[in-house]
């Protein structure tokens, strides 16, 4: 057993209001530079929808992630020999049109326009060429199902849905959608790292953050096609790849990442988990329906003495162990089994998990308004507004049981609490629901507490990173402090 720590995250999808505050917070801090305008390290998609970049989930086009061939795990897009021979032209790379051409407006025209009968306008210009453009797409062009006959109807997660189920999903009266906020998953088996021929991408052993070393990156772009989530981006101005850095400068100084800190819906949970690095390859190689369970099994119980001892042997300090024991992520992922990883079938073992949304599954709109009925969860598929298969394709590598389990527990907690506060649910019904979900009243209480009214501190457990100790091995910390902050060697400049 090789125990390592990883900052993991959980997003509670029922709580996301699709406000994009997270995306803006991230953009303002990290990707407000030339060459990065089109990048959204954090983005929020409407589901069903085709996402950003368009159809990123369909790996037939981009060939991201891993596949099992003859029992062995291998990259879908590249490999040692393929990587070194395909190098003059990347066959599976998305182009800027698969994202969108970034633009701004000529605001100055509003001030400089000569007096006249018409209102002056600020025309859009491309942030790449500076020329006028007609805006044809943007990173959220299908927000809230805008243009759904084109976008939502092409969602890759609709595979395996019957015509009836599809019709039901897009039925006007019952039209339903939910949001999917995405950042880099800081995977345990990162395809981006494996695909980089220069060895520029790496995973930090102490906290699991996946980064691109800008001085080692030679711009071959294998990471871009390698990442199945399309969370590595190519900066066309510097010729280097860039990606979500999990706000490590913030975390190292004790702050939550900006997208977590600003989240309006308070959907985001952050905290370290312990995992067994020896089991990574095996867990990533099992058949699709078993992937989620194998991945959960990698996450170790932070109260077990042998785990703690293994962690200490690997240099994980007591503060981290205490944080791992208190982390909301451990509870949501492993203890309560509420959260599921996004597209486990890409086999990168993502460490951002999602609590599947209950409301779009359950609720129905009737003449008397919105109605939520527990029995419906167990009724036939026809009753559901979002087919179970859709969520299972998205969050459980096709395993519907896992989604049902999580939803059943959420329902049980809701009715348990409703019985207490409103009092219109018979006690035997609550008991039945709890029993069916395998959830004790104490657990229901804890889930309610963490999901409905957590404090900022309960949601974000950032243990002390103590990177100053790491630096001390290499240089004198005072020297380091004195030399830091001189800025990038190439000043970011904005022309438009």
């Amino acid at each position, binding site marked *: 057993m090789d125990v390592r720590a990883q900052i993991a995250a959980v997003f509670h999808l029922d709580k996301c209001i699709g406000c994009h505050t997270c995306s803006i917070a991230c953009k303002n801090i990290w990707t407000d530079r030339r060459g990065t305008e089109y990048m959204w390290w954090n983005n929020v998609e409407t589901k069903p929808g085709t996402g950003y970049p368009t159809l990123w989930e369909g790996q037939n086009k981009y060939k991201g992630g891993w596949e099992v061939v003859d029992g062995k795990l291998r*990259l879908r897009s590249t490999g*040692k020999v393929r*990587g*070194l021979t395909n*190098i*003059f*032209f*990347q066959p599976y*790379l*998305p*182009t*800027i049109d698969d994202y969108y051409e970034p633009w701004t407006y000529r605001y100055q025209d509003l001030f400089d326009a000569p007096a006249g009968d018409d209102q002056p306008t600020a025309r859009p210009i491309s942030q*790449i*060429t*500076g*020329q006028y453009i007609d805006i044809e797409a943007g990173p959220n062009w299908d927000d809230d199902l805008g243009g759904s006959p084109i976008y939502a109807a092409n969602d890759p997660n609709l595979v395996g849905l019957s015509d009836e189920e599809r019709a039901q999903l897009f039925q006007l009266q019952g039209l339903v959608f939910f949001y999917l906020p995405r950042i880099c998953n800081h995977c345990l*088996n*990162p395809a981006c*790292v*494996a695909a*980089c*021929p*220069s*060895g520029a*991408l*790496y*995973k*930090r*052993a*102490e906290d699991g953050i996946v980064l691109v070393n*800008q*001085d080692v*990156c*030679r*711009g*071959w*772009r294998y990471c871009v096609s390698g990442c199945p989530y399309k969370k590595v981006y*190519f900066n*066309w*101005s*510097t*010729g*280097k790849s860039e990606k979500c850095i999990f706000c490590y400068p913030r975390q190292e100084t004790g702050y939550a990442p900006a997208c977590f800190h600003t989240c309006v819906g308070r959907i985001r949970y952050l905290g370290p988990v312990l995992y067994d*690095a020896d089991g*990574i390859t095996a867990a990533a190689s099992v058949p699709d329906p078993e992937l989620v369970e194998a991945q959960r099994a990698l996450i170790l119980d932070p109260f077990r003495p042998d785990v703690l001892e293994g962690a200490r042997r690997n*240099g994980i300090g007591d503060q981290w162990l205490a944080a791992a024991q208190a982390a909301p992520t451990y509870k949501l992922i492993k203890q309560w089994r509420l959260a599921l990883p996004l597209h486990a079938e890409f086999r990168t073992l993502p460490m951002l998990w999602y609590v599947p949304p209950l409301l779009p599954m359950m609720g129905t709109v009737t003449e008397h308004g919105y109605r939520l009925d527990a029995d419906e969860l167990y009724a036939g598929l026809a009753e559901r507004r979002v087919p179970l298969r859709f969520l299972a394709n998205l969050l459980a590598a096709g395993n519907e049981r896992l989604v049902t389990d999580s939803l059943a527990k959420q329902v049980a907690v809701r009715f348990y609490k409703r019985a207490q506060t409103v009092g219109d649910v018979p006690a035997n019904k609550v008991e039945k629901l709890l029993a069916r979900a395998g959830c004790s009243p104490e657990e229901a209480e804890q889930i309610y507490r963490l999901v409905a009214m957590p404090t900022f501190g309960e949601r974000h457990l950032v243990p002390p990173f103590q*990177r100053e*100790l*790491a630096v001390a*091995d290499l240089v004198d910390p005072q020297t380091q402090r004195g030399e830091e902050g001189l800025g990038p*060697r*190439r000043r970011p400049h904005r022309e438009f």
Partner: protein
Amino acid sequence: MLDLFLYGVFPYVALALALVGGLWRYFRDRFSFSAFSSQLLENRSLFWGSVPWHYGIVILLVGHLIGWLIPAGVAAFNAVPLRLYILEITALGLGLLALVGIAILLYRRAVNPRVRAAGTAMDVVLVVLLLAQAALGVYTAVFVRWGSWWYISNAVPYLNSLLVLNPQIQYATSLPLLTQLHVLNAFLLVAVFPFSRLIHVFTYPITYLWRPYINVIWYRRSRN
């Protein structure tokens, strides 16, 4: 006098620029080491340009290098006329491939507004120089026949004389004019290499072959 400068002095100037400039850039500005791909911005004509160009030029360069390093072996190979013909035709084919490729790359660079916005003046200069080099090479292959033969009797002694700091410029000046330009342009390319994206030739990530796929870095201790 001019010949002496061009063939006796300029090669050393070019080499010095390449060495000093290359080392300086490596140690002072490693961040800038990359091929500056523009595929994100345009990928259709890049395919038709980059693939033929690179396969053509890389194999040809290796051929030039082999001819220089083991001339006796090449001479022995060429002793059978059929083999000589095959070698010459292959080289011409590769030259044409490279020429078409670099012409497409230049067209793309000149015409596509996104590629233009992302590029620099040096990018254009470089591609023009390479286009000229490929064109002069193809000219030589067609009109100065049996290049793989006289390369051994002219180019190799000339290059070796440069190497031992005793330039024998008559080997170069006896070549036809356009072929001389091919030689001079080659030195010019050596000179611009560290100041252009040509440095990407030396970033070929061969270490990928033996490193483990997953790269985990420990900060507080080294792990073996």
